[in-house]
């Protein structure tokens, strides 16, 4: 299916099939529950939730000023809650029930029909699959928070998250993982270079552009108020990411083991690469730098981690360190877009890069598996990444317009000066005396 055809069909596709005409029986699943797979998938789910709470929250919270740290933690927490509720209400069904190539149907609305014993063809309960995928629907809008910190209204952020999950996340998840058109075309994206990082990264950039820069973005930006907090959060992201990537193999199997290994290698290599560049460029190797390199490495390896070998992981790690480092400067210094915590440069760029390069690194030449023709796979990957980026951008513009017309995007100037913790949440982060 070419993009133009896709473009013409989607409006049609979304509407009539939302409610399944006949509640189709699932194809007879012959799988039985495997306790080892179940044990690992529950654990992986816990790990991915841990990535957001408190991992991502701390990673982001430490990067802002002390007067805004609570608002960041609050955003992450509230996004977790709202995404969870929407997921159960209907998004799981839209993402993972049959539907058509563009969107699932509503047969599992309110988790209808997902009984205790339901396996749905897997070796672990569907309830666990619902939960595992929910943690992805939590962290993805969570990532976007990094772009909007220190100035966006709490209400606006909540509304954005809800709409974004419906308009951007659920469709893309369906395309790539829920049996949609990209999956049918053979797109490779084990754990979300497209579904998670491309959507979040692109949307973050667009949102940051609409929000405008923080008050003193041009004159003087403030250093991270707590690099230690950043590092704690990053460490939790690292350990949790094994749930993210290896968990996406759906069981405690050999593939999960290799996924774990290449995930780790890419993270370590990207950290060192970033640090070396920073050391040369800025004179000193910093803590915020090394952990940012790690996150870049993990975002980059995520889509590829089901198909590459150690060699591919090293290559992705090096590229993540280099490309994401310079992307940060490009966005902030050149384009002067205040994507405050570099969501696009680190997650977006990394995720897109990995999503494309798996087409090459997944070949046997690079010790990978699952890619037989690099050329054809590259085309598939690039098309998927490109289309997802466009969709995310368009969806974000739409949502921003809605918010501007309703609750408004940005807090007032005084609130921004005082800090969102006081202004929006009535709290103070550090009463140390």
């Amino acid at each position, binding site marked *: 299916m070419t993009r133009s055809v896709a473009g013409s069909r989607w409006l049609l596709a979304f509407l009539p099939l939302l409610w399944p005409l006949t509640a189709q029986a699932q194809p007879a699943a012959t799988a039985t529950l495997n306790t080892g797979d179940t044990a690992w998938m529950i654990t992986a789910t816990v790990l991915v939730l841990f990535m957001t709470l408190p991992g991502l929250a701390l990673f982001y919270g430490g990067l802002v000023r002390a007067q805004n740290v609570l608002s960041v933690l609050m955003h992450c927490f509230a996004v977790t809650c709202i995404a969870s509720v929407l997921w159960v209400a209907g998004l799981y069904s839209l993402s993972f029930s049959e539907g058509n190539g563009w969107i699932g149907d509503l047969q599992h609305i309110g988790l209808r029909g997902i009984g205790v014993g339901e396996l749905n063809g897997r070796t672990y309960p569907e309830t666990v699959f619902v939960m595992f995928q929910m943690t992805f629907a939590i962290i993805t809008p969570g990532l976007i928070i990094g772009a909007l910190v220190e100035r966006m209204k709490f209400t606006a952020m909540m509304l954005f998250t809800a709409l974004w999950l419906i308009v951007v996340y659920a469709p893309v998840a369906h395309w790539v993982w829920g049996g949609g058109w990209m999956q049918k075309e053979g797109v490779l994206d084990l754990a979300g270079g497209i579904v998670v990082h491309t959507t979040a990264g692109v949307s973050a950039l667009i949102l940051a552009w609409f929000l405008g820069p923080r008050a003193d973005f041009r004159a*003087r*930006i403030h*250093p*991270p108020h707590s690099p230690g907090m950043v590092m704690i959060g990053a460490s939790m992201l690292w350990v949790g990411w094994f749930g993210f990537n290896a968990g996406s193999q759906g069981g405690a199997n050999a593939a999960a083991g290799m996924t774990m290994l290449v995930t780790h290698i890419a993270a370590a290599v990207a950290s060192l690469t970033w640090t070396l560049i920073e050391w040369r460029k800025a004179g000193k190797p*910093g803590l915020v730098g090394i952990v940012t390199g790690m996150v870049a490495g993990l975002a980059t390896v995520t889509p590829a981690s089901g198909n590459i070998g150690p060699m591919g992981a090293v290559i992705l790690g090096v590229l993540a360190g280099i490309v994401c480092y310079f992307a940060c400067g490009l966005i*902030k210094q050149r384009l002067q877009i205040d994507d405050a915590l570099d969501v696009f440069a680190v997650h977006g760029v990394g995720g897109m890069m990995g999503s494309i390069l798996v087409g090459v690194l997944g070949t046997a030449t690079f010790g990978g598996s699952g890619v037989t023709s690099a050329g054809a796979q590259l085309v598939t990957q690039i098309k998927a990444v490109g289309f997802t980026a466009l969709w995310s951008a368009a969806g974000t513009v739409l949502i921003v317009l809605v918010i501007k017309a309703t609750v408004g995007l940005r807090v007032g100037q005084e609130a921004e000066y005082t800090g969102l913790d006081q202004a929006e949440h009535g709290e103070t982060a550090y009463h140390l005396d």
Partner: protein
Amino acid sequence: MKLIKAIIKPFKLQEVRQALSSIGVEGMTVTEVKGFGRQKGHTEIYRGSEYTVDFLPKTMVEIAVAADRVGEVINTISKAASSGKIGDGKIFVLPLEHVVRIRTGEVGHEAL
């Protein structure tokens, strides 16, 4: 009586205290402050962007002394706090009209 306010580099506090102690001055009140002056702050670089920290952490030592000890105290501080590099700080002397020791109600020199 005078109130001496000395702005010094934080890592010199120990030396200054010991030096003052050796001339019999034991009482002082210390505040952490931020200094702006000829010595400039620094930049921290994160992800390729420069962040300016334009103040320098300094330590302010306040000492109430009898007028006749001012010279001695100034000299002592100067010597102990000096590193010869820019930003070593300043000493200010203010008139002090009255002192009370809360615990005993003693006033003036008694109270120092």
